[in-house]
């Protein structure tokens, strides 16, 4: 686990555009951010603000036109596909909006998939801790289609946590869930930060979700336009309203 106060991920002067000429869209416009280890960060902004692109670049799923991306002390922009794949496997965890579990595998197998792909044995103690945190011990032998949406998303969170990545990225993890299930998932992410010093970055629309985090970054037109520390739901709503105006 990374030390408190260290930078877990960093982007500098990151720029990305789509299309050319008239139809050109600037998704990221010279963005520079430090994401601190052991922090729960939310990225917010209206559609087209570049928040998803930012996260995809951070998570080694997409490449930017210029600027640098670092996970820990590893510069991503110089890596080839093979190394990026290995980085995703070992240093990054993912939680998607739609649960994205492998339907043929049981919950347990889904959780252990990144480790078994890497050919590593799970750290027994850590695995038990993760299972305890996500509170799924009695559901581990079920296939995804036997689980509710909230349970599936908790499996996805457990899968992201189990390989002890430097950063867990969550892309609207509560977007498809009712509020109770959503709260369970957010609580889970929060506790992984508090109890295990996990670094978590979450893209969201939801001020309620944002209120679970330590820090909220607001994006608009590809730029970071505002930032809140230890936000409440009201503060987030206020900022959003102000930015939209």
């Amino acid at each position: 686990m990374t030390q408190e106060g260290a930078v877990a991920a960093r982007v500098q002067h990151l720029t990305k555009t789509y299309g050319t000429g008239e139809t050109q869209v600037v998704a990221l416009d010279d963005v520079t951010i430090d994401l601190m280890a052991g922090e729960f960060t939310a990225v917010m902004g209206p559609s087209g603000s570049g928040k998803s692109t930012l996260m995809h670049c951070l998570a080694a799923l997409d490449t930017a036109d210029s600027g640098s991306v670092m996970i820990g002390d590893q510069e991503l922009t110089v890596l080839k596909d093979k190394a990026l794949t290995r980085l995703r496997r070992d240093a990054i965890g993912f939680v998607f909006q739609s649960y994205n579990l492998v339907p043929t595998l049981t919950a347990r197998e889904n959780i252990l998939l990144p480790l078994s792909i890497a050919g590593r044995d799970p750290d027994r103690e850590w695995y038990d801790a993760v299972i305890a945190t996500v509170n799924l011990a009695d559901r581990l032998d079920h296939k995804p289609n036997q689980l509710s949406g909230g349970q599936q998303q908790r499996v996805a969170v457990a899968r992201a946590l189990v390989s002890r990545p430097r950063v867990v990225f969550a892309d609207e993890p509560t977007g498809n869930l009712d509020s109770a299930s959503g709260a369970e998932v957010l609580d889970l992410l929060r506790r992984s930060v508090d109890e295990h010093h996990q670094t978590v970055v979450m893209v969201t629309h939801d001020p309620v979700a944002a209120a679970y985090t330590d820090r909220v970054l607001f994006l608009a037109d590809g730029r970071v336009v505002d930032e809140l520390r230890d936000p409440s739901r009201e503060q987030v709503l206020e900022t959003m309203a102000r930015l939209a105006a």
Partner: protein
Amino acid sequence: MIRASLKSLLARRVRLLLSTFAIVLGVAFVTGILMFSDTVQRSFVALFDSTVGDSVVRPVNSDVAQQGAVFSTQTVPASLQPDLERLPGAARVDGMVSATGVYVLSTGGKVVGGSGPPAFGGNWNDAPAGHGLEGLVILDGHEPHGADEVVLDESTADRAGYELGDKVSIVTATQTLDVHPTLVGIAGFREGGSLNGATYAAFDTPTAQQLFLDGKDAYTVFWVTARDGVSQEELTEQVAAALPEGYEAVTGDDAAEESAGPLLSGIGFLTTFLLIFAGIALVVSSYIIVNTFSILVAQRSRELALLRALGASKKQVIRSVQLEAFAVGLVGSTLGLGLGVVLAMGIRALVSSIGLDLAHQPLILAPRTVLAAFATGIVVTMVAAWLPARRTGRIAPVQALRDDVALPESSVRRRLLLGVALLAAGIPLALVGLFVGAVPHNGWWVGAGVLAVLLGVTAASPVIGRPFLRATGAVEARAFGPMGRLAGQNSLRNPRRTTATASALMIGLTLAFTVAILGSSAKASVDKAVEDNFIGDYVVSSAFGEGFSPAITDRMAEIDGVTEVLRQRYGFGLLGGDEDDGLSIVATAPETIGDFHLKAVAGSVSDFADDTVLLKEDWADDHDLGVGDTLEVTLPTGAKKWRVVGVVEDSPLVFSPVLTTTQTLLDSGFPDQDNYVVVFADPGATGLQERLDAVVEDLPVVTVKDQQAFAAEQRAPIDRIIGIIYGLLFFAVVIAVLGIVNTLALSVIERTREIGLLRAIGVSRRQLRQMIRLESVVIAVLGAVLGVALGIVFGVTLMYALRDQGLERISIPVVQLVVFLVLSLVLGVLAAVFPARRAARLDVLRAIAAD
């Protein structure tokens, strides 16, 4: 609605291409085979029509020998010609000399052709064939004149490598002919066409008479050409009235039919045989089309549900799927027709290995073929699409709003019941066809039974295959770790799809392995028969049982180390003159009869003399003949009565139930030729093979074989036939492998999001490719295992049914079994190349976002 379904069709180009491919191959196979059989049929009809005149004059009973493929020495005298020319209906009369077994040697000293189609020799003339048809004409050079000139047909000259002016080597098995005339002309049909692999060497008439008829001023037949307005029948009546006793006239049509009959029925067999393979290809491609459409519809189920939600009726949805099938069928049939032409050329090349050389025959594309191509392509596709189309009707509109739409599927239990029902019907059908001799058309029974069993196994395969899929899944998980486990789970995800894909491969491999068992059993039986029956140390014979000069046998008898030679000759007659009761006859010299060591059960072998016969016990019993009775046989020289002097136990040395003397056969109009000679050697003799070989050095047709070589020669035709069957089944396997490609490619498209997820959490491209490859291998191996298992069942049952017909040994070729299984692994890996690459190249972000 129509626009919507056509649009959706075009939007899925890859899927369209893949589903069309199966149809293209199936249709191509049918087209190719129909084209080929039309071509064969027409080429033979044309060939035989050009080998008869309007009226043919010949010795009575010359058709007897022809039926037994033995040539008689009977001729018609040239002195008949003036009488025939005076007939009012005759425009001209031409004497024809013809002989078989006249071999042309290539520039390299090898016999041209000779492996099936006959080798003709004769006199050159320009007589028109029946109905004014133009026969062979000189295409290049000029007609032969004098003893030193010869004309060859185009294909023979080509294959032998001769050009005009070259010295041509021509031999016969009898060694009565060994000449080296100059090639002065190339003959052929003006409008294309060939002799279909036969060879033809023509001399001028006096030379031909000298060479083939011992210099007699006679002919094999006369062709009488009718004047304008005189029919073949009228002319033949006039001719018949003018002929002396012992000669007959037949119309050209009848003569052509007589000589073409046995050949055409052989060709008919070949056509039926090929059509069976077309049927197999169609069944296999239907599997793939059904499978493809099931997947396509499953993938479109959300879209179809949306259409339903927007107000489309069940009927409209079903119709849109069927319209899609129609469009795909139409495109597939058109492309298949084109590929079929290419395939017909392939088959033409394939059969040339059994001596049916059609390289010079133009391929015939009959309207019927075009019709059949489109009918099969469109009908099969629409029927194949009907099942999944019907299921689409059951998609509820509300499903459009759900995330994961599952197409309603009939339960696996119902499939199992269907499979069991088909097996319960098919097995008895096949067994009745095989073992109850009394039912008519038992081939159909067996065919229907086998088809029912194959379909039954296919229907039940999701259940039969499940334990196999589980087992391979476990093996792969152990051997290949997490990707192996994923692959194993994926194969089990939709066992029906996996097993249906495997079933297509199963059919091809079932038949291939059945054939492998038949072939290897037949060869084992040949080996056993040779082992049991081979007596003496060497056998001298020609490849097709043609006769050779007795002088060869005489010279061999004098070789140092040879203790004894036994000669046999073959003849053919009609028992009691009945056209349908052909009888093969064997002859030997009375003074050597003791060396056959025959055991008489009645009468005495020592009474064996001219105009008497010895009969084998079983045959004598069947025909109710005993010592002192008379055997009536019609031979080329007419009806004969032979006295039975002995009934003997069966002996492997005597190939026919009736044994008479050499002189008796000579008197009956058969040539002075030995057919089969057994050489006994001094045990201490060395280098004997070389000395025997030296005797037949100049006769490439006649060979000296020890037991091993003889067995190999007997096995060779089996290998050739198996080779052709493998060649044809290869197409069925290709279709099946494309089916695997199809299923995998479609399932990759279906799993786009899942694949994206795997890539996102750190699965490398290599690992992804490995996963797809393993899935493919599981399908291929399942198909191979089912195929080989069924092949063993079919093969062994068939051999058991045939055990009375001399095929006593049942042999399962283990090496081939291993080869088949390994081959299926390779096929699996190959089939995965394209889908795996596609999966590995998916863009991670877009794949995750895909719906």
